[in-house]
């Protein structure tokens, strides 16, 4: 079956549309809520405008800007240090700095507040030393929330920019230096722009997660757009307006992503992946101490302190909850993570691949539109998304007499919808760095898309695929709201356990499942970084 250059594309494109349609389905249901604007809805919108919409928008904006700045500063600087520089402890920090990824945001938030608030140990000690009126920063304010979210979300930027820096190595910097740039100039004018797609992909993930976050901000009683969605739903009993608010959130994300993409499309960066060996800058003296100290500080605050506090609480509240059911929670957590990780990865690869297939302008823009829509789910709060899926599936169930809505399938689709962006970003960033000429050459030689995918793209993409799988795995294991509402009977996970314990404010009893969850998350993160390291030194 010899064909033209685009033969076979058709099949893949259809498959991609299909996958995108299923993942985008709950999003479409949320968007469809604009079809209902009755007098009740109008009254609520009017009320929101009159009372708090401006404050919520401002809070959300400050959060997005603050967390954006925070994750870029932390993520890019740490990635640069651990890939391009050499200093004591680098090999440890290289993977250990990923660890805050394993700490769920809501856990980080309640641990931090437990330590830092007025009744916590630090302020109590301060009052003992400096008297009742000792000054202490307002830990519950905007800065506190930004601090917490930056700490748990910087690993996205760190991970993606690390792989970009690893690919680019030192040569580009050296070229810049030869052309007369100072080291700092070379960093900002060469290294950063080349890594920009990866940095932006990580940033987008961190910010979408910020927008969808309900757990951490509600521990802080900090009002955002997302808390307003919950308030309208649970307080005013109006799911329609809640979904409308959620779709505004999606609109904001979509517009931002499109703008960024447009400003980037003018430039395209590819390069040879066959850097012989990564030459590093050997840091010595003060610089080495500063680098080690900086990495150690981030690791300490972002991981050791929360884990330590949780372990203390765990010891205090005892192991009474540790019964045979616990193994079940653990098993379900891992099982759901692995299944969702694999499924999401397949869809992400399919979409990223099909996006690069040759085709007419119309089919290309249709493809990129459906991808954009399908990856928006990451900005949707989990339980809003879950309702979209339940509505969809119960409708299908009623028409077909099936029982999908309370099955694992529905939950897995929820995860796909929620986390497609997470796997898509590293896969797409990885494909971005594969020269189009390689694919063109293979196609010109008659290889069909399936073969190109198997024999060229997947081997070249291994690091990106592994990254995508790991982040989805860890994210799914941490995911709470959608799991809570959609898990089939008996499918309790560790995150559900944490919710159960924290729902009545008993943070200390949640320590056991929280510690277990963090430890389970450690292993894949460690393996990921180790394999990334070995693959670069091998090349």
């Amino acid at each position, binding site marked *: 079956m010899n064909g033209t250059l685009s033969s076979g594309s058709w099949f893949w494109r259809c498959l991609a549309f299909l996958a995108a349609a299923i993942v985008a389905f709950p999003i479409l249901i949320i968007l469809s809520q604009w079809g209902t604007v009755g007098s009740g809805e109008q009254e609520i919108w009017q009320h929101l405008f009159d009372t708090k919409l401006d404050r919520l928008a401002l809070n959300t904006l400050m959060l997005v800007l603050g967390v954006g700045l925070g994750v870029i500063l932390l993520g890019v600087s740490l990635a640069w240090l651990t890939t391009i520089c050499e200093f004591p402890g680098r090999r440890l920090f290289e993977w250990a700095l990923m660890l805050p990824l394993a700490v769920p945001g809501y856990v980080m938030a309640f641990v931090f507040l437990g330590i830092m608030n007025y009744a916590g140990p630090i302020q109590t000690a301060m009052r003992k030393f400096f008297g009742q009126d000792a000054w202490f920063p307002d830990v519950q304010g905007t800065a506190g929330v930004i601090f917490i979210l930056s700490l748990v979300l910087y690993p996205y930027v760190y991970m993606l920019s690390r792989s970009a820096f690893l690919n680019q190595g030192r040569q580009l910097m050296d070229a810049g230096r030869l052309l007369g740039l100072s080291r700092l100039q070379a960093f900002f004018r060469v290294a950063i722009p080349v890594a920009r797609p990866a940095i932006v992909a990580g940033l987008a993930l961190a910010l979408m997660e910020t927008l969808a976050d309900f757990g951490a901000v509600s*521990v802080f009683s900090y009002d955002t757009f997302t808390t307003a969605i919950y308030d309208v739903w649970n307080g005013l*009993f109006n*799911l*329609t307006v809640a979904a409308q608010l959620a779709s505004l959130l999606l609109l904001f994300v979509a517009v931002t992503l499109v703008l960024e993409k447009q400003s980037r499309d003018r430039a395209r960066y590819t390069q040879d992946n066959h850097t012989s060996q990564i030459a590093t800058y050997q840091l010595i003296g003060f610089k080495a101490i500063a680098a080690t100290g900086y990495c150690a500080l981030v690791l300490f605050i972002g991981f050791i302190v929360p884990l330590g506090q949780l372990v203390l609480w765990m010891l205090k509240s005892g192991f009474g909850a540790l019964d045979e059911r616990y193994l079940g929670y653990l098993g379900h957590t891992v099982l759901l993570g692995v299944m969702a990780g694999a499924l999401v990865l397949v869809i992400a690869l399919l979409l990223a691949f099909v996006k690069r297939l040759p085709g007419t302008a119309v089919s290309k823009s249709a493809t990129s539109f459906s991808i954009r829509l399908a990856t928006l789910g990451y900005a949707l709060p989990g339980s809003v998304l879950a309702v979209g899926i339940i509505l969809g599936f119960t409708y299908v169930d009623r028409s077909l007499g099936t029982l999908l*809505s309370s099955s694992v399938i529905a939950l897995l689709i929820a995860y796909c919808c929620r986390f497609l962006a997470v796997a898509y970003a590293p896969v797409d960033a990885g494909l971005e760095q594969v020269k189009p000429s390689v694919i063109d050459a293979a196609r010109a030689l008659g290889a069909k898309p399936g073969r190109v995918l198997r024999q060229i793209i997947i081997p070249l993409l291994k690091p990106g695929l592994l990254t995508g799988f790991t982040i989805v795995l860890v994210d799914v294991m941490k995911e709470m709201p959608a799991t809570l509402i959609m898990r089939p009977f008996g*499918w309790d996970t560790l995150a559900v356990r944490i919710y159960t314990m924290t729902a009545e404010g008993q943070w200390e009893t949640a320590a056991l499942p929280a510690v277990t969850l963090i430890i389970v998350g450690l292993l894949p993160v460690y393996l990921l970084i180790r394999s990334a390291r070995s693959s670069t030194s091998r090349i």
Partner: protein
Amino acid sequence: MLVLLNDNYYHLRPFKGFKMSRLSLNILIIISFLALVACSAEPSGRESAGLNTISLQSAPDQGASQSEITEINGPVIVYSSRQEHLIKPLFDRFTAETGIKVQYQTGEEGPLIARLQAEGEQTFADILYTVDAGNLWSAAEKGLLAPIDSEILEHNIPDHLQDPLNRWFGLSVRARTIVYSTERVNPAELSSYTALANPQWQGRLCLRTSRKVYNMSLVATMIERLGETETQEVVEGWVSNLATRVFSGDAQLIEAIAAGQCDVGLVNTYYLGQLQAQNPDIPVALFWANQNSSGVHVNISGAGVTTYAKNRAGAVQLIEWLSTAEPQYLFSDLNLEFPANPDVSPVDLVASWGDYKQDTLNVEAAGRLQADAVMLMDRADYR
């Protein structure tokens, strides 16, 4: 004002045609996945499979959903927003006494109710069990709960703790009242919820977030008693008296009073009970509010039988059983709440707080006026 989700099905219709074929393909992909893990499925896999069988059997009977399909040995299935460790001991006891199995799905009330509604006639759930009358009221308004005609429940549960139309019944009582620092407050200074708005408490009051349904219910009953205008003045007074930002939990609030961040606050009594159980010397005590007027604001945890229950008889039996002496005592033992059944005394720690006058306004008002309360708190800038 309320929009039924059913409306939304009209918007789903256009998807019907092409959705199916795509879905079946997608299912193929996922089934291949599940096949991989099926061998390693946990015991719970058996449970859910069993569940599915039951509902498949009863599927042909859907038309007769209102009639009682008695499967004496079939399980009762509960959607519960009450946490597992608070309901499981009760259900285990029920199963031991009657041989009827109970399966439950816990979750947040909003999504649980949305799920129940979306599932409609197909739902597995026989009972909806939630915390707070507002949630039960909202489920009943959506037509998700069917009336229960039961002499046992009418006898055991006081009128103000049940739906006037008998679609739900309170099973435990949660009192929300004033707590104060025993070091800095003389209880003689305290009287009512409204009095906490007085300038005397400037910079001394702690409140939990208005997002918590307990506060919505309290303000809703105040609207019923005092009217919107006066209630709003009170809430504004509270806000101007705040010592610090609102807390996300009652336990944190009590700890803040103990640490000296503020002097008085409003909490559900069992939170204080939990902290007192850990530390009997905690310098925070409880004050029964409004004893010279309407009485302490109470809310409930309660349950109703779903409209499309497949095991209605078992469901009614379970709710009736929960209103009897032994489980009623367990409610106070497990979570330091008050029994809804006035003939049952609570555990010692709870009894040690003394008798109090309860507000006998029907808790249904908490649901009916909840949206008004939320909007009022927004206007008063109570966050």
